[in-house]
C-alpha cells in the first residue's frame, strides 16, 4: 500500500521518502486503533522501502509528537475485564507493538523522527526506534511511567541503553522528569535541533542528503552500527506485565484518568 489515510495516522511517499504522519487527537495517544494502523504500516513498510531511501515519522498535531500510551484505554481495559484476561490483553498489546517497533528499527532505510512538543512515554519510544532524531526547539522528552507504578513498555529502556550511557538512563527513568532539547542534545539523544515549527523541513532536507548515497551501502552501515537488543526487549515485556498485575498500578492509572487538576502531566 503506497499511500494510506487512517484515523490515527497516514503515510505517503514524498520525494523518495516515506512520510508517516501521526494525527490522533489530542496528542497521538497510542491505543488499540493506533496499534492496528501501525501494524498496517509495518506490513506495508518492506514494500515502501523498495521505492524510497528514507522514512520520516512526524506529527501533524500542535500539542506534540506523542504523549505515549493511551492510559485511559489501559485503565478501562483493566476495569472491564477479569484480571488475568486484562493481563493477557496487555501482554498481547505489548508483543504487537514491539513487533511494529522492531520492524521500523531494522528496516534498511535511514529513519528519522521529526519531533516537537510533547514526546513522552510511548511517543518517546517510537522516536527511539529511528536512526536520527531531529527535534523542534520546543520538544520535550520524558519517561513518566514510574509515577504509575510501571516501566516504559514499548522498548524504551533497551533502546535508550543502546544509545546513551547507563547513568543518564537511570536519571531519566528513575526521576521521571521531562527535559528539553538542549539537554537531549547534550546527552546524545537528539542529533539536530530545528527552529520552532521547522523539524519536518529539516528532516526532509536530511532525507534528501541521505538519498545521495548508495542504498545498499547505507543499509550495511546501519546494520553495522545499530543492533536490536531483542533479549532485553523481551525481558522488558515480562517486567512490565509483572508490575501491571499489582493493584498499585490500577490505582496509579485511576488517579491519572480521574485527575482534573491542571497538572496531570507534571510528575
Amino acid at each position, binding site marked *: 500500500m503506497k499511500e494510506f489515510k487512517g484515523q490515527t495516522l497516514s503515510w505517503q511517499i514524498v520525494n523518495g521518502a516515506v512520510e508517516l504522519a501521526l494525527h490522533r487527537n489530542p496528542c497521538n495517544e497510542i491505543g488499540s486503533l493506533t496499534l492496528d494502523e501501525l501494524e498496517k504500516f509495518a506490513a506495508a513498510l518492506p514494500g515502501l522501502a523498495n521505492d524510497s531511501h528514507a522514512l520520516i515519522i512526524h506529527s501533524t498535531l500542535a500539542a*506534540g509528537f506523542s504523549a505515549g500510551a493511551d492510559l485511559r484505554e489501559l485503565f478501562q481495559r483493566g476495569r472491564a475485564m477479569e484480571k488475568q484476561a486484562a493481563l493477557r490483553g496487555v501482554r498481547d498489546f505489548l508483543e504487537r507493538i514491539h513487533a511494529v517497533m522492531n520492524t521500523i528499527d531494522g528496516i534498511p532505510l535511514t529513519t528519522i523522527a521529526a519531533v516537537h512538543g510533547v514526546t513522552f512515554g510511548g511517543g518517546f519510544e517510537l522516536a527511539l526506534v529511528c536512526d536520527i532524531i531531529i527535534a523542534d526547539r520546543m520538544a*520535550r522528552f520524558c519517561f513518566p511511567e514510574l509515577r504509575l507504578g510501571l516501566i516504559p513498555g514499548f522498548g524504551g529502556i533497551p533502546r535508550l541503553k543502546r544509545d546513551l550511557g547507563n547513568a543518564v538512563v537511570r536519571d531519566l527513568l528513575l526521576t521521571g522528569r521531562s527535559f*528539553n532539547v538542549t539537554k537531549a542534545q547534550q546527552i546524545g539523544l537528539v542529533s539536530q535541533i530545528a527552529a520552532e515549527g521547522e523539524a519536518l523541513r529539516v528532516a526532509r532536507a536530511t532525507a534528501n542528503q541521505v538519498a545521495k548515497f548508495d542504498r545498499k551501502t547505507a543499509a550495511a552501515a546501519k546494520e553495522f552500527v545499530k543492533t536490536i537488543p531483542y533479549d532485553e526487549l523481551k525481558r522488558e515485556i515480562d517486567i512490565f506485565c509483572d508490575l501491571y498485575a499489582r493493584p498499585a498500578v490500577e490505582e496509579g492509572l485511576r488517579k491519572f484518568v480521574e485527575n482534573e487538576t*491542571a*497538572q496531570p502531566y*507534571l510528575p
Partner: protein
Amino acid sequence: MPVPTIDHTLDEILNLAASHFKVPREKLTPDDDFFKTLGIDSLQALDLLTRLEHHFRIELPDYELQGVSDFRTLANRIQARL
C-alpha cells in the same frame, strides 16, 4: 555575568508569559495563579517551562514545579538555578 535580582527574574517571567500567551502584561501580577490567569493546561505549562528554560538558559526539572502555580514561587525556583 552577575546573577539578576529576583525582581528582575520575576519581571522577565511575567513579560515572557504575557507575550507568548497573548495576555496584557498589566493584567499579570506575581501572586496570580498562572494556570488561571493565562488560561493554560498542563501541556501548555510544559511549553511555558521549556520557554523559560531556554530564556534563562537553565535546566529546571519539572518535579520542582509540583504544586507551584503562582509566578512568584516559579521565579524563586528559577532564581535558585541561575
